[in-house]
């Protein structure tokens, strides 16, 4: 394993030298890779014809769970990311079962709502726990164990004044300030490895029964159900898989920066993820990957425009949907173009022939 990582690092150094004219440094590359993983998470749902925008919420869940596990419980990175994925997957089930009955815009709205609820929960989690503990202390439920817990833990602080007033201080997620001082454990090779695993997974998925069922559901849900495909089951499985991939992206990115806070996972993130898929196109898995990389690299490459990043993103989203309806990776369009030029050439040849004949 060790020499592989060394080899990879060599490769990466060379790659970064090659990319340096584009202003792509290692942190930028890392975020390009995270975005590519996120792009694949939305690719799965879009490929099944589900317009779900819950990825941001699941990314937040993955990030918070894994960061808490490494930082507070001292778990290893891989184990805590795996746990984050599993937690997100488990949460996806009760969300998906009711929500995936909705279609189109209704599904989009409901999943946006889910993402916002997750973000607001992260924002207010500490307050909620605080008021709950305060209520417990006042009602003297589990009083002793709470007090002794507060003495040993640096998260929880309980002061009871002489006049009976209770002050509870609880800090785990840190509200709007977020979690600080996260150990930077993720490295570029891990991101690359995970991306490759996800891509392999998706390629195999496309050649499996489940993958074919996904494509069938996208094209005609009713006809698919008449083929013996359990539409509800397939949709939920895909939703869970997509949630797990997003959670892994969250866990990995959480360990790249020293700080995470709820504002990282708002509606902006969802729009970004959607933009990856729209720009790249969703005909193949390569679309969202390339879309994500381009969209992430662009503001760096066009340095000097970095404060215009939002504007550029918006223009690209608008321009891509209007002028590149199938995205950058457009296999059918490419084939069509080749066919068009080939026809043109043969037509021209025939015209020359006709002219020669007459």
């Amino acid at each position: 394993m060790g020499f592989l990582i060394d080899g990879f690092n060599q490769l990466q150094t060379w790659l970064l030298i090659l990319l340096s004219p584009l202003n792509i440094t290692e942190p930028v590359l890392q975020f390009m890779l995270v975005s590519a993983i996120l792009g694949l998470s939305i690719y799965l749902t879009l490929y099944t014809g589900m317009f779900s925008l819950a990825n941001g919420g699941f990314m937040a869940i993955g990030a918070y769970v894994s960061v808490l596990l490494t930082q507070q419980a001292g778990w290893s990175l891989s184990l805590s990311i795996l746990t984050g994925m599993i937690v997100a997957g488990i949460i996806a089930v009760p969300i998906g079962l009711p929500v995936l009955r909705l279609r189109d815009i209704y599904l989009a709205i409901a999943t946006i709502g889910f993402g916002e609820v997750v973000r607001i929960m992260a924002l207010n989690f500490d307050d909620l726990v605080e008021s709950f503990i305060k209520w417990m202390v006042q009602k003297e439920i589990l009083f002793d164990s709470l007090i002794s817990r507060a003495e040993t833990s640096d998260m929880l602080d309980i002061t009871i004044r002489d006049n009976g007033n209770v002050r509870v201080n609880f800090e785990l997620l840190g509200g709007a300030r977020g979690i600080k001082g996260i150990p930077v454990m993720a490295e570029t090779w891990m991101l690359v490895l995970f991306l490759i695993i996800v891509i392999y997974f998706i390629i195999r998925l496309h050649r499996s029964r489940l993958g074919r069922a996904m494509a069938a559901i996208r094209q005609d849900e009713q006809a698919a159900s008449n083929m013996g495909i359990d539409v509800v089951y397939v949709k939920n499985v895909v939703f869970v898989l997509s949630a797990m991939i997003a959670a892994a992206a969250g866990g990995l990115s959480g360990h790249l920066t020293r700080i995470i806070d709820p504002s990282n996972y708002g509606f902006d993130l969802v729009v970004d993820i959607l933009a990856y898929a729209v720009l790249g196109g969703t005909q193949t898995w390569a679309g969202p990957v390339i879309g994500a990389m381009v969209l992430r690299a662009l503001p760096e490459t066009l340095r000097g425009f970095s404060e215009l990043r939002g504007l550029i993103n918006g223009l690209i989203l608008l321009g891509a949907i209007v002028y590149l309806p199938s995205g950058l990776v457009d296999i059918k369009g490419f084939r069509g173009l080749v066919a068009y030029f080939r026809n043109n050439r043969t037509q021209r040849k025939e015209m020359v022939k006709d002219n020669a004949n007459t």
Partner: protein
Amino acid sequence: MPILELKHVSRHFGGLLALEDVNMIVEVGKVVGLIGPNGAGKTTMINNISGLDHPTNGEILFQGQAIHKQTPHKITQIGITRTYQNIRLFGDMTAHDNLLIGQHARGRATLLESLFFLPRYLEEERTLRQRATELLAQFGLEHVTNTLAGTLSYGDQRRLEMARALAANPKLILLDEPTAGMNPTETHELGEQILRLRAMGITILVIEHDMSLIHQVCDEVYVLNFGCMIAQGTPTEIRANPLVIEAYLGVDEDSRSPRLHT
């Protein structure tokens, strides 16, 4: 022995009665026709049998088992498949892949097995592909194996849809106007295909406007008008039945010229 039985089936859409107290018995190994003017409720009936829609009242039995509350995929798994009046192939997939999807209910390999190329997956994939190729040959579609279904010619699409319905190894196939838009030669060929399926022991319920096809293939015919079953009998009996003639002639000219309608 009846394979399919409809008992007092009604379907109401708000105030509209699409089906009203319909009774029907389809015997094993027979080809049964279902005719009636446009808007008589034929497609609604097929939708109810295949589980896309559910009756308001009454029950539907398949091999003695109640299926009127089942989901479509369960109904396919126990042996009923169908085609559609307006063809519903998976247009972005090749003809071959459409037949792989058609066999979905027969597959058992899990995602995990396909991830790691485990033997069951490989074995299953091989048999599914082989069967798809056989079906393409059976319906004379070898030349379009790798063509996207959406770009096939109309007749090929109709044939592919029938092949897809057959792919799941059904006991009963529901054909919803299989000859719509076909010329007499093509219609006759399709009739022969239906008879071949019957020879294989498959029961067929076919909605049809074309009386020549009905005469060619059907053992028994049911006639639906305004959601009610008005007649039943052999094709010859039906042709002579005054109620049927009235249903077709009495309403208006348009509904009598079925070939214009697709």
